[in-house]
């Protein structure tokens, strides 16, 4: 049982209130709950606050991990999540605070007050940063012995703290500070600020924190990329820089573009982008002694196959030895490349595509 005896701020009367554990009634809620809830509790998304692109990337990742989500449902789910849990703490779910990490940690974890954390940062820089480091992860290895403070992000005093409940008593014992004063001189407001600042540092470190983004991926050689495009990559068989790829770099940020060129079949478009949805898989089924039926693949397994033909009519068959099934996956060339190209090829291709502004 944790009690905030040091600063008895009863911000969270009930854990559920803190976490804002509810799903807004918006279009797509049922689709989201059905698709995501069939593998894990749907509540795993609660506390996340991300933009449309980030939700899109996360849900696409889930598809690669086995989530059964159709292209149509994909859009519905991403729209639901992006509208229900957008960036920006308070707006996220009606809660006072958006956690960075899915579902991890205790229900009663501290709700970081950004203003108090900013005040705490000032105290931290004045009194602590020399020994504990800019990110509160401890001193650098080459710091002098007497200035080597431990990692505070991993500190149990910090992790067990709620609003100063353990940091306060620790500092009350007297801890040396940069100014030469003892920590016993800190006011309660300063300690509360330090508590918020340190919890913010922990949140930043966690998966899904604000820095969970690639930093610099434009390392390739555009000329080499152009050569691969026209040569070994065989990209010109389907794409042209003046045609479907014209201005491609102004439609996607570099990370999305790299993902899309390697995994076009699992990387969905940004909302508003003019790029087409992934192209459908086409299939031709030829029953014995009957004309072939061609259409968009709806379903296939070892036992049955179904398609929708040009007129919109649905057909299905039991799969038998004499039922001929020809599948045309428009992304087959991309899948083949996964076993062919090097990381340099990919980075070069990206550098080349980046020239197509």
């Amino acid at each position, binding site marked *: 049982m944790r009690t905030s005896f040091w600063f008895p701020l009863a911000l969270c009367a009930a854990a559920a209130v803190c976490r804002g554990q509810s799903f807004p009634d918006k279009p797509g809620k049922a689709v989201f*709950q*059905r698709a995501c*809830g*069939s*593998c*894990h*509790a*749907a*509540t*795993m998304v609660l506390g996340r606050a991300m933009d449309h692109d980030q939700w899109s*990337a996360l849900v*696409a*990742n889930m*598809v*690669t*991990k*086995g989530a*059964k989500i159709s292209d149509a449902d994909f859009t519905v789910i991403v729209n639901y999540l992006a509208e229900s849990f957008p960036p920006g703490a308070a707006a996220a779910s009606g809660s006072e605070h958006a956690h960075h990490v899915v*579902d*991890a*940690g*205790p*229900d*009663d974890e501290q709700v970081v007050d950004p203003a108090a954390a900013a005040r705490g940062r000032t105290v931290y820089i004045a009194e602590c940063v020399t020994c504990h*480091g800019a990110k509160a*992860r*401890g001193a*650098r290895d080459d710091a002098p012995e007497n200035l080597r403070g431990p*990692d505070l992000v*991993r500190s*149990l005093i910090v*992790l*067990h703290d709620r609003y100063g409940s353990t940091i306060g008593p620790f500092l009350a014992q007297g801890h040396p500070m940069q100014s030469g004063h003892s920590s016993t001189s800190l006011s309660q407001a300063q300690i509360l600020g330090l508590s918020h600042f340190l919890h913010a540092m*922990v949140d930043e*470190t*966690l*998966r899904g*924190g604000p*820095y*969970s983004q*690639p*930093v*610099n*991926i*434009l*390392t390739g050689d555009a000329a080499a990329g152009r050569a691969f495009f026209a040569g070994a990559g065989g990209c010109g068989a389907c794409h042209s820089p003046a045609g479907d790829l014209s201005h491609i770099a102004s439609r996607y940020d570099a990370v999305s573009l*790299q*993902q899309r060129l*390697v*995994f076009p079949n*699992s*990387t969905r478009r940004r909302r508003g982008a003019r790029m087409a949805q992934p192209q459908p898989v086409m299939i031709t089924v030829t029953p014995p002694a009957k004309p072939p039926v061609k259409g968009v693949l709806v*379903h296939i*397994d*070892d*036992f049955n196959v179904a398609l929708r033909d040009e007129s919109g009519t649905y057909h299905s068959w039991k799969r038998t030895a004499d039922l001929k099934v020809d599948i045309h996956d428009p992304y087959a060339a991309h899948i083949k490349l*996964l076993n062919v190209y090097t*990381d340099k090829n*990919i*980075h070069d291709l990206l550098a080349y595509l980046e020239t197509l502004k």
Partner: protein
Amino acid sequence: MKNTIAVCMSAAVLAAQIPNSPRMLDPSPDTWPMYNGDYSGRRFSKLDKVNAGNIDSLSLAWVYRIGQGGESIGAIKSTPVLLDGILYFTVPDHVWAVDARDGREVWSYTWQSHGGIHIGNRGVGVYGNWLYFETPDCNLVSLNLKDGSERWHKPICDLDQFYFGSIAPLIVKDHVITGVSGDDLDIPGYLESHDPETGALQWRWYAHPNPGDPEAKTWPNTDAMLHGGGMTWGPCTYDPELNLLYFGTGNPQPVIAGKARQGDDLYTESIIALNPDTGKMAWYFQSSPHDTHDWDAIEVPMLIDGTVDGRPRKLLAQASRNGYFFVLDRTDGKNLVTAKFAKANWAKGTDAKGQPIPDPAKMPQPDGALVSPDQGGAANWPPPSFDPLTGLFYINATDAWSIYYIYDDSDKPEGWAGNDRGGYSQSSLEAIDYHTGKIAWRHKWEGWGSRAGVLSTAGNLVFTGDAANNFVAMNAQTGEPLWHANLARSVSNGPMTYELDGTQYVVVGAGDTLWGFAMLRKP
């Protein structure tokens, strides 16, 4: 720091009469007394009333849905434990007792949660009249088997450090073996043994060496080692003759950025053999030295009594998340086979110990590295199966690619500090010859991927799920699909089977529903 703390060393006073001993050591076909069905982890049943010749007549016997008021509470990832005609299974914070003959609920129990990751729960352990399960908020809970009333709960980890509980406790003699999960912040993994009567800690084994041990040199410094991960969230197996407990450990931490933990990072991503009475390690084998791809080596360490070069051998096989199939001598951990069973482009080869050698170029990079398999892995927690009649090891294997990025390229990354993005995957059910690691047959699923568990039976059958929500039975010798049922959700656990009143049942979980199939036709 002591690696093994003996809190209550009562090995000497082991009771001669352990309530479940006979049914644990040689389970009869009307029981399934633990997560894997028996201590070997083979998930093979001698039952053959349902067989390749009559599988067409396997029909639906009952359905049990866990949904409460329409809100999703997760998928059934646990394999039910069956004792005295009752199935016991879980999702996070929930336990059910259901009549194995007709799927009617006997009782249910809900834990009031204080947080933790609710990604899945693998099930229960049973000792005498008591049931044990772990909660996401770090408790080991004991219930009365009869009515689901709570006897006690004991903390097994610290939520504030982002640990959580998910595994099915294994009962070995008078030990309740529990493991821990969680890799958001940099914390050490450990395995514990608890007293089945009181829940008191008997011993704890940490997934890192003691400072000063030779293996401690696989870390750059003690601080990195003591924050180095190695969660114990996979199922344990046990060899009563050797009195050794086997399990795998999870990824090192920080997870993706390995800069501040150069070296092999023992005992992360290793297969471990422990004495269950003392928690003392007998041997280890590292499936993924210095991993940077989140490829926990917690997949079932399966015990196979096989023959090698004409000699009977006590073997242990693992199809690891990193794409490699390993066969070890389980008496001493010596490697006999290392072979890829799925696409894996991250290793430069294998060393003298049979361990893959990671290729630095395929570690995550700031600009991205195309890696196979992806973070989900070539295999994962869903249990494989071994059929001693065919001599084949069955696993849903995934060829998968993803791009791994470093997000924090500073000297002191923490937490994850990177991740994989996007991807493509393709799954097959594979039958692997344990002598060589060669694929005897491979059945490629239509669609993107299947991560279902596997059951094999003496009826020349293999049961699993495909990528299209079907529960499928295949010919164990040839891989030919013989029977299927569309369950509307992916198979989400390891299927199990049993015989009651002369009828063989096959039970499988798919999302929020437990399905009971049976051979109802009279022969």
